[in-house]
């Protein structure tokens, strides 16, 4: 007997309706009553068409039931057991994938000593104190990096250069000179370079703020929230908290720098898990346009690591804030919870990832000596080196990396419906937890599925209540920051 059974998908409800998130295509369909009933009747069993139609008799006529079955088969939500879907080939990206974003570690030194820092804490990969890498990037290396970016960006008209550290502003002179040089060189080859940086804000002063505003440099501030939360981990070398120093400087920056929206980036730990309060403080009291949260990357034995219980708590808080985002956006008001917005954009486009992020592909990190690495978190690590800015990308290493890290090879992910968006999660997180970048981050699967489900629900709600908001993602040139 020819029987039907479920293929891979995730069902969710929003705005009083059933939705289907298909895996691995990442397509989303709204279900009407007959199609929802077909999936329901089918359950986890396998039944023939006639059997399903018979089970639905009395509720839906045969024509509707058969049509619903056909459509579900067409989009591969269900399928005939005797006719399995073709096995997806493991496709590696094109050989010379254009470089989109280069993260330049202009220094590996920092004037803060945040206890949880992946660069200096106990989980660090590279020895920045006694290691072979220079402590500051020279102007010459920065120029070579710009040439590298222009060359490796291939046919792209626009490339992104992000300055990073250590504390980026410790090397402000090189940053300043590099922007001028990059602008000139980009103009000569007919390209545009977009600049941004991440800083702890301790070294901001009027001249620097002026420069950043005039040059339209995107700024992300690393900050953990109100005074006692910020001072819990983000401390100077003498142990003094940094809130008192950064707060007035950030307000100054937000007042003067209006050419780009300025975002805060919060590191969450088990000790500072109070998302709503942090969000309120940073947006309403400080004036940030957007706030993004990320759990601290650390080995599980650290006291501040977010354990299983912490992930549940974090999910509850994320959900509450996400709901607030939904209500605001449904009423056409801005809300700066950037984690949701970024995910909504990926959901809208139906992104289905072979790799968790662009690292090693469209994004590369550059160490102070000009070594090219997987991403900024691995800059300076010989084990994750992809060449140098002088010699270019080592294509063989890159290819081997892409070969080893494809989601098709992550066995655990093959049974997970959230893999189109997650694809195993951060390489650096995996490296710190399991000692290898190839492993999927199994310690936060439940959190990822919970959070993805929440974002899907919000997406479903918005598709009913404010489709115009989602339609903005259709326009290619609209970047996340320009939406609302």
């Amino acid at each position, binding site marked *: 007997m020819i029987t039907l059974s479920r293929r891979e998908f995730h069902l969710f409800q929003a705005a009083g309706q059933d939705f289907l998130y298909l895996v691995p295509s990442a397509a989303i369909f709204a279900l009407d009553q007959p199609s929802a009933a077909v999936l329901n009747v089918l359950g986890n069993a396998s039944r023939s068409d006639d059997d399903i139609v018979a089970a639905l008799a009395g509720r839906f006529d045969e024509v509707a039931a058969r049509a619903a079955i056909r*459509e579900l088969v067409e989009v591969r939500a269900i399928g005939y057991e005797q006719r399995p879907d073709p*096995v997806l080939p493991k*496709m590696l990206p094109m050989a010379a994938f254009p470089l989109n974003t280069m993260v330049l570690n202009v220094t590996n030194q920092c004037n803060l000593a945040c206890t949880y820092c992946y660069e200096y804490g106990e989980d660090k990969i590279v020895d920045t104190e006694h290691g072979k890498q220079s402590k500051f990037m020279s102007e010459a290396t920065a120029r070579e990096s710009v040439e590298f970016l222009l060359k490796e960006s291939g046919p792209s008209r626009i490339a992104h250069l992000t300055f990073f550290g250590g504390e980026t502003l410790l090397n402000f002179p090189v940053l300043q000179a590099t922007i001028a040089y990059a602008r000139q060189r980009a103009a000569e080859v007919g390209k545009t370079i977009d600049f941004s940086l991440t800083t702890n804000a301790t070294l901001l002063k009027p001249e620097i703020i002026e420069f950043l505003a005039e040059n339209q440099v995107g700024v992300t501030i690393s900050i953990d929230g109100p005074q006692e939360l910020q001072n819990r981990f983000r401390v100077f070398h003498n142990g003094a908290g940094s809130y008192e120093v950064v707060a007035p400087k950030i307000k100054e920056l937000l007042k003067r720098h209006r050419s780009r929206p300025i975002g805060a980036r919060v590191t969450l730990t088990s000790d500072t898990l109070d998302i709503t309060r942090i969000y309120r403080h940073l947006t309403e009291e400080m004036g940030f346009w957007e706030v993004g949260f990320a759990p601290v990357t650390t080995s599980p034995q650290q006291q501040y690591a977010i354990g299983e219980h912490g992930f549940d708590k974090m999910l509850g808080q994320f959900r509450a804030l996400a709901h607030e985002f939904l209500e605001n956006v449904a009423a056409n008001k801005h809300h700066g919870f950037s984690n949701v917005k970024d995910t909504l954009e990926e959901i809208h486009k139906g992104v289905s990832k072979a790799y968790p992020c662009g690292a090693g592909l469209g994004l590369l990190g550059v160490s102070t000596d000009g070594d090219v690495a997987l991403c900024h978190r691995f800059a300076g690590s010989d084990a994750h080196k992809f060449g140098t800015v002088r010699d270019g990308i080592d294509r063989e290493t890159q290819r081997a990396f892409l070969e080893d890290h494809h989601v098709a090879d992550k066995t655990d992910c093959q049974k997970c419906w959230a893999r189109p968006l997650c694809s195993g999660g951060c390489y650096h997180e995996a490296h710190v937890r399991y000692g290898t970048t190839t492993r999927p981050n199994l310690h936060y699967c439940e959190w990822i599925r919970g959070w993805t489900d929440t974002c899907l629900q919000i997406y479903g709600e918005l598709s009913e209540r404010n489709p115009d908001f989602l339609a903005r993602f259709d326009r290619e040139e609209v970047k996340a920051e320009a939406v609302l």
Partner: protein
Amino acid sequence: MTHLKPINQKANRVVDHVKAEAEGPVKADVVALQQTTPQQPHFPLGCSLVFSPGWEADSTGGTAGLCQPVERDIFDCHIGCFWPAQVPDQLNHAPDWTAKCASAQKDWRKLDLVFPG
């Protein structure tokens, strides 16, 4: 589609694809060069289902210069293929039948007859 309503960009592409398929074989579908071919059934080397010169006879019509050892089929036919080669029942009666035969090409003489015990 009347029962499923596409919501995101990818769903619209799926619908377009379904429509195009309904109108006949999808034309001008781009297939990347590196895309692997769909999985084929496994034909062991020298299988009588495929024409494979150099298997049954060498270039002179004899068997002295075969490009594959005839002994290969002992394993390729009865392990990798549906074809029921005449071999002892290694599951129940003769689990160690191949114990001394690490390489069929070299050790095929060590594959002995099995007598009912």
